[in-house]
């Protein structure tokens, strides 16, 4: 029994019993949600864990999210919550000296950075990484996920004004960090 439970199974099989189309949501949006989480937590294995946890919890609940027709927004919000938890745990670990944040995994002894074009992108991502969490989330949802201000506000549970403010301040900070400030 235990062995069977530990064997990898496809998303379809795990989610097939759900009343609403959780399997379809998983199939359609899994990769995009992992990409979203990667941009917040900055490493893929952790991002995959976060997204998997969200889907596994939803499956375990056997229930439809509170807002019918807005399942994706709900799942996206769950993923962002999961990312926040990861970042909180990291902050604690960092305080006790057991975690060092890495921007772009230092992978080889030669410590190659990225491709030559990625050097410039790395600068942007590094500047993004030091923004406050709320601003970072707003910028990622706006410039990666392409959400409108109203959608971002609904996802993060904040007002549209707060979204506008966070986006403007985030962009201004980035521009300053990248030497593009006016």
């Amino acid at each position, binding site marked *: 029994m*235990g062995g069977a*439970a*530990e064997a*990898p*199974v*496809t*998303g379809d099989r795990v*989610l097939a019993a759900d009343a609403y189309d959780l399997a379809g949501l*998983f199939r359609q949006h*899994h*990769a995009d949600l*992992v*990409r*979203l989480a*990667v*941009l917040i937590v900055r490493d*893929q294995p952790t991002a*995959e864990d976060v997204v*998997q946890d969200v*889907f*596994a919890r939803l499956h*375990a609940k056997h229930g439809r999210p509170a807002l019918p027709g807005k399942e994706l927004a709900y799942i996206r919000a769950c993923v962002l919550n999961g990312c926040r938890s990861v970042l909180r745990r990291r902050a604690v670990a*960092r305080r006790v*000296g*057991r*975690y*060092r*944040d890495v*921007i*772009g*995994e*230092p*992978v*080889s*002894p*030669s*410590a*190659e*950075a990225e*491709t*030559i*074009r*990625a*050097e*410039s*992108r*790395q*600068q*942007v*991502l590094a500047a*993004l990484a030091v923004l406050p969490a709320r601003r970072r989330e707003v*910028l*990622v949802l706006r*410039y*990666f996920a392409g959400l409108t201000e109203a959608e971002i506000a609904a996802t993060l549970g904040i007002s549209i004004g707060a979204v506008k403010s966070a986006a403007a301040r985030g*962009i201004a900070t*980035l*521009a300053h960090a*990248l030497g*593009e400030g006016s």
Partner: protein
Amino acid sequence: MTTRTEERLADALAARAAAVRADSLRPLRARPERRRARAWRWLAPLAAAMSVALVAGLMAALGPGPPSLAARGLPRYYVWYASSTVPARLQVRSTSTGAVVASVPDPALASGGGWEWVGAQAGFRTYVALAACGHCRRSQVYSFHLDRDGRVTNMAVITDRTMPVSAVYSLSPDGSRLGYSMTTVLKGRLTTRIVIFSLRTGRVAVFRGGLGRRGFVPVVRSLSWPRNGKYLAFAVTLCPRSGPPRSTCSPWTVRSLNPAAHGGSLASGSVLLTTHAPVVINQVINPLVINPAGTGALRMSVQPPRSTANQTFRLTSISLTTGERTVLRTWVGPDIEALYATGGVVLVLSAPGRVGQFPSHRFRVIGLIGRSGKYQPLPLDRAGD
């Protein structure tokens, strides 16, 4: 209106997200139920210990095996990263068993600093390592020594100079010079430079420019020294300054730089080797290094390019004088292979991953190539990871 910052942000986010491939994601796993610890749990380690003792007894009874690596003039120990620790830790491993025999003490940096890079002097007894703290952006260069039993001694900071963290480093075999290459954005333009820093005198020689063409930018990889330390070799390719991220670049050229020079152009040395095949950048990490004897280059290539299921890596030796090529070894599988020249040998590294992507785990040492030019596989004991 979209500002330049917004454009760059959108581009960077899209590029980072594009690195996450849908077919590389783990399938969804059902959560295993937690089981209560069983009363007989202690039996497992006991059985394992008895198995080890039995195997050791059998090996002793069957007599000595082939001569050890040390007996063949190869190092007895080497220092490498623990595979999964963050911040990175360094371990001393035995070349003959692959087992961890000691750990290198963590650097004395605040805020959870770790080891960013390590290089060996010829003989693999003296090492230079770079410790860095990601948040405070400080770095320190340490030196340490291994005694006959692989224990770390004489560990000390050897320079106060702050070294860049995101650079490619290479230590000269005599341990006197540290070469590194880095690419930075200066006034909106990508600039590549190679620096040779004397660890004994503190002298810095900067080599920059001289290789670019209009619309192209030089990409430098694979810094390496021959065993006599007469020059610092590097591989360079010219890539279009604009265009898709994986656009094709010019074939690799291996060039040399004179470590005694006071700096100058990247083209100030000589061309050691030119390959013929165009390059898809970042397909292989550290694709070309000089062999320890300085008579040829070692190339790691992948065939067919960008295959994800069965990527085939080929390690080839290329003579600098005749251009003759000899295939030393091929690997087929899901792992990424790479080369790293240090301590007068070339280490062959492996990590799980796909061609064209940076692996998410640290490389492990799976073999080395010494002065003989032959590939020598190294065992790896994962117990100490």
